[in-house]
């Protein structure tokens, strides 16, 4: 369905020190049809950046994104815009995503208008159906973004993302502002839609329990790289970082400096001199791990 090949993103920062922040560092990622890949990892590890790159909302510094056999990085803007109806985002901060001057109705209806899909009556009916699907009252549609609660706004953004029956959605912390009951209904809704419409999801979350429930596969990100990926990663973690993320082991330091080699070196309870060279990703019975412990030397 969607595939990222050797993706990197460097944010240049500062005029003085021309040293950039490497937000995403040589990532290969693939999400198949009707599959949910959960992306977990600590704050700042590059999850949102990677998600946005897959939708070309952020341009990668290098690498390719293949969607439906087309390389998105080489498309013109118009072509890309047409494809956009098949790829959506539920952004981490919904307040950023909506125009504060528009009533919520117009924000949800916008995708229909851009892609010239529905007539006026159809549009109204669909918008009403969508807002009900996410468990909100139609009355809310006549309000502005600042006139609803955080979790209500998050659900409006979800309604907008599913409006055009996309094939792929990047869900970036989609339930971070919902109580656990509403979270359960929203997650069930997303899973239902996936089955009915064969959608694929990249599901970014800090809630490891939730990740384990929704995901077919899990990818763990650390310092811009995917360090472990596969099925059952959280039940049986192989990478030392995944083990610290789950609290099975503790990092041996608080200072995450990485001059060269493995990026987890300074914190890793199992490090050895080999780790001063960068590890390669190895594949073992469906699991991919980037760690010297599992490489043949």
């Amino acid at each position: 369905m969607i595939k990222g090949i050797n993706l990197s993103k460097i944010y240049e920062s500062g005029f003085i020190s021309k040293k950039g922040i490497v937000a995403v560092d040589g990532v290969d990622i693939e999400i198949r049809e009707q599959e949910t890949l959960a992306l977990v990892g600590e704050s700042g590890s590059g999850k949102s950046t990677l998600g946005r790159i897959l939708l070309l909302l952020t341009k990668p510094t290098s690498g390719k994104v293949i969607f439906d056999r087309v390389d998105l990085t080489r498309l013109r803007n118009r072509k890309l815009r047409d494809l956009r109806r098949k790829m959506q985002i539920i952004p981490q901060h919904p307040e950023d995503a909506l125009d504060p001057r528009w009533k919520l109705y117009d924000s949800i209806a916008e995708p229909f208008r851009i892609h010239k899909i529905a007539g006026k009556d159809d549009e109204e009916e669909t918008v009403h159906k969508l807002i009900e699907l996410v468990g909100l009252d139609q009355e809310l549609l006549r309000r502005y973004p600042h006139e609803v609660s955080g979790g209500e706004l998050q659900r409006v953004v979800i309604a907008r993302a599913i409006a055009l029956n996309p094939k792929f959605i990047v869900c970036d912390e989609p339930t971070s502002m919902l109580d656990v009951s509403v979270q359960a209904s929203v997650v069930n809704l997303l899973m239902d839609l996936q089955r009915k419409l064969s959608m694929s999801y990249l599901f970014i979350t800090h809630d490891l329990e939730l990740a384990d429930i929704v995901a077919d596969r899990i990818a763990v990100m650390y310092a811009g790289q995917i360090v472990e990926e596969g099925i059952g990663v959280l039940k049986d973690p192989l990478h030392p970082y995944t083990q610290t993320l789950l609290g099975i082991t503790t990092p041996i330091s608080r200072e995450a400096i990485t001059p060269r080699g493995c990026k987890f070196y300074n914190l890793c309870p199992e490090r050895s001199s080999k780790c001063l060279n960068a590890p390669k990703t190895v594949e073992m019975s469906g699991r991919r791990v980037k760690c010297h412990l599992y490489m043949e030397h």
Partner: protein
Amino acid sequence: MWVLVVRDLHVHFVLENMTVKAVDGVSFHVSEGEALALIGESGSGKSVLGMTILRLLPENVRVNGKILFNGSNLLDLSEEGLREIRGKEIAWVPQNPATSLNPVMKVGIQVAEPMEIHLRIDRKSAVQRVANLLKFFDINPPEKRVNEYPHQYSGGMKQRALVAMGTSTKPKLIIADEPTKGIDMTKKVSIVELFRKIKKNELSLLLITHDLPFAEKLADRIAVMYCGQIVEVCNVKKFFKSPLHPYSKALLNSLPSRGLKPIKGNPPSMVNPPKGCKFHPRCEYMSGRCLEEPQMFEIDGNLVRCWLYD
């Protein structure tokens, strides 16, 4: 000693053709050195309640009731009197980093501002303190991060920068709205650590949160909101073992670890709320009496708004 006392508070928004009863008769208190966690349904009025205490609401709002802080009613204070309290005596950590951080100002300077104003320290030492705070919250490298703009931060970093800003001035009461939203376990530990320290210094916390494990770790008591009302106030240990109100029980049962089962039925409307007990259309224990509004009943020092406890 009670630091904050809220009595029969009503907050209504008047819109074009409707009134939203966002807070509808809320009473509670927070003691010195106590952490009270306010949990409950999305849209039930938690943020509005917090913003009412600091009078951060828009013009079209009607507020009734009393909010006593250090004995004086905040609702009677002049804007000037309030400025003395806001940020200095009572701090606020807002729910939305995107709308709360100024996009064209360096994070270091924004976070330093409350310290400059309320602690009367100069910009340079304030920014130095910010760097220390960023380091505490694992926003690395801090000397570089103080000079960055909000869009250069990841989502969780912005969230932590807000917590740093809200807690830097040693206020008597901190109201934090979803301070752990989108933050991973390892980083959450620093927030828990910080709030524990705050409590030890006899300062008080009102924590608005959907993060139940976080509430369990930090709170002394849990207050549960549903459709503009507090339906339960309960000691934390008891709450997570056996909560009182049917809504609380149903809420705990929809935790991911318990199978992700949502509460049946739709969330109530705040424009036309259900008659009587507002939870009755969705309640497993519903009986004829529930069409009448229940009062708060006291059970072993805990409070619950449900006829089952009459």
